[in-house]
């Protein structure tokens, strides 16, 4: 995977954007206001001139330009600054992802638009708007201070995981032209680990993504249909990649600072080490979910835990836990799919069928829909 790091023309675009931004500095019918100094201004031309002289713009452009020059000693620092700026929480989440793909991973706007199934002008506008806000609202171009770092690193990792899931879940159904977001997310995760080797959660996320990718060959059958973990041919897994991911996870574990990504990776690791679905160490998985719930109690994590509980304590117990989540997750297709599976297990076929039907209605992903249809007909 040859890639020129940070090879993009943000600096040039910022200059262009600033011309448009100049327009935004002026009131229009319905919006105007402002006292004093504003009276001095008479024309847009002067605003643009002022903007060009503005030191803040000049500095920002220079910094962005520097990030495009490989081989500099400060290259790593600049790349980190770029990542943290792109993943700033003041930017809309979808803009964070798009900007990171564009600025850090070197995607073209066309590629990003294809990956997120939106039109190119829509994506271009999203990116331009985000860059414009970076400049207009003066989002600093730097790695956050130690006190802010954990929260801001979380934001970066969340962007990478979102990117990964977008790519991973849509695999198989994706058009050939779509660039693989999952691989790029792993690549960016590895970059974060190289730039910040002492962050256990960055290592945890990298291990998690690699463990998922290692199973990629088994996730779709010859006909292109999705195969669930329980039914996968485990000989197709990339065991070398799994061993590699486990080493990454062990590095994180040695830092004795568990976090959500490390725990999710640990759960994936337990699956990866099991010879079969039946031979899975469900007790350990339930224990890991309990730790995860201690850190982050969400209905979706409870739902996943219930699947493990079904194997450890039986479907009836799990069904009770799943039913408790009905209000929180009634719009989530996997809630209905899990419920359906458990109802089938206890012989409530009619109720199960209704639940499969509901899951299908709520699911948008083509590969998952095909799987649900098979469940309904079978």
């Amino acid at each position, binding site marked *: 995977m040859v890639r020129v790091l940070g090879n993009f023309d943000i600096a040039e675009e910022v200059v262009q954007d600033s011309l*448009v931004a100049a*327009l*935004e*500095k*002026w*009131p*229009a*019918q*319905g*919006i*105007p*206001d*402002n*006292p*004093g100094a*504003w*009276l001095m201004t*008479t*024309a*847009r*031309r002067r605003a643009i001139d002022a903007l060009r002289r503005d030191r803040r713009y000049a500095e920002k452009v220079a910094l962005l330009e520097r990030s495009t020059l490989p081989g500099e000693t400060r290259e790593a620092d600049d790349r980190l600054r770029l990542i943290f700026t792109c993943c700033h*929480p*003041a*930017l*809309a989440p979808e*803009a964070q992802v798009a900007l990171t793909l564009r600025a850090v991973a070197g995607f073209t706007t066309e590629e990003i638009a294809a990956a997120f199934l939106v039109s190119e002008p829509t994506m271009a506008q999203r990116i331009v*708007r985000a860059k*414009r*806000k970076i400049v*207009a*609202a003066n989002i600093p171009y730097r790695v956050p201070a130690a006190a802010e770092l954990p929260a801001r690193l979380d934001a970066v990792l969340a962007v990478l995981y979102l990117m990964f899931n977008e790519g991973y879940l849509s695999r198989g159904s994706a058009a050939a032209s779509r660039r693989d977001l999952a691989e790029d997310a792993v690549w960016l995760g590895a970059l974060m680990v190289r730039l910040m080797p002492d962050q256990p959660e960055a290592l945890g996320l990298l291990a998690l993504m690699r463990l998922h990718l290692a199973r990629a060959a088994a996730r779709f059958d010859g006909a292109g249909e999705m195969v669930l973990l329980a039914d996968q041919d485990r000989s197709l897994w990339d065991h070398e990649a799994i061993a590699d991911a486990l080493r990454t996870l062990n590095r994180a574990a040695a830092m004795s600072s568990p976090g959500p990504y490390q725990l999710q990776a640990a759960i994936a690791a337990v699956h990866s080490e099991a010879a079969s679905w039946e031979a899975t160490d469900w007790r350990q998985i339930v224990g890991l979910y309990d730790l995860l719930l201690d850190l982050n109690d969400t209905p979706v994590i409870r739902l996943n835990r219930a699947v493990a509980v079904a194997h450890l304590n039986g479907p009836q117990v799990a069904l009770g836990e799943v039913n408790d989540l009905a209000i929180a997750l009634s719009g989530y297709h996997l809630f209905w799919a899990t419920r359906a599976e458990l109802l089938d297990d206890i012989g409530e076929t009619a109720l199960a069928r209704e639940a499969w039907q509901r899951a299908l209605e709520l699911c948008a992903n083509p590969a998952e829909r095909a799987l649900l249809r098979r469940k309904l007909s079978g």
Partner: protein
Amino acid sequence: MKYMLLFVGTRESQDQWDTMTPEQLHAAMGGAETWFEKYTQAGKITGGLQLQGYKTVTTAQDSNGKRIVTDGPFIESKEVIGGFAIVDVKDLEEAQEMAKSWPGGPVEVWPAVER
């Protein structure tokens, strides 16, 4: 007594700035300039700012016990605040008179808490 005049605009009109010509922009803001000039000279305006467009806004708020930061204004509405003026006038009548002569969109007049 102090009042805050909030100048209300729409997201749609702010979007139009992107495509306006300099002449159109100049024409659009000319009346506001005159308004500010008049009342600043009369000593009625004690402060005020023009805010950048809604696309530059960030919100910090509590969500499930955590302080989170998000893109965009917290009031979800097609209307946005484009700026404000603090006026020091005799009473609401006078503040209203000023608001009535504002050449732009709607104006909200809020009495300030005196300290």
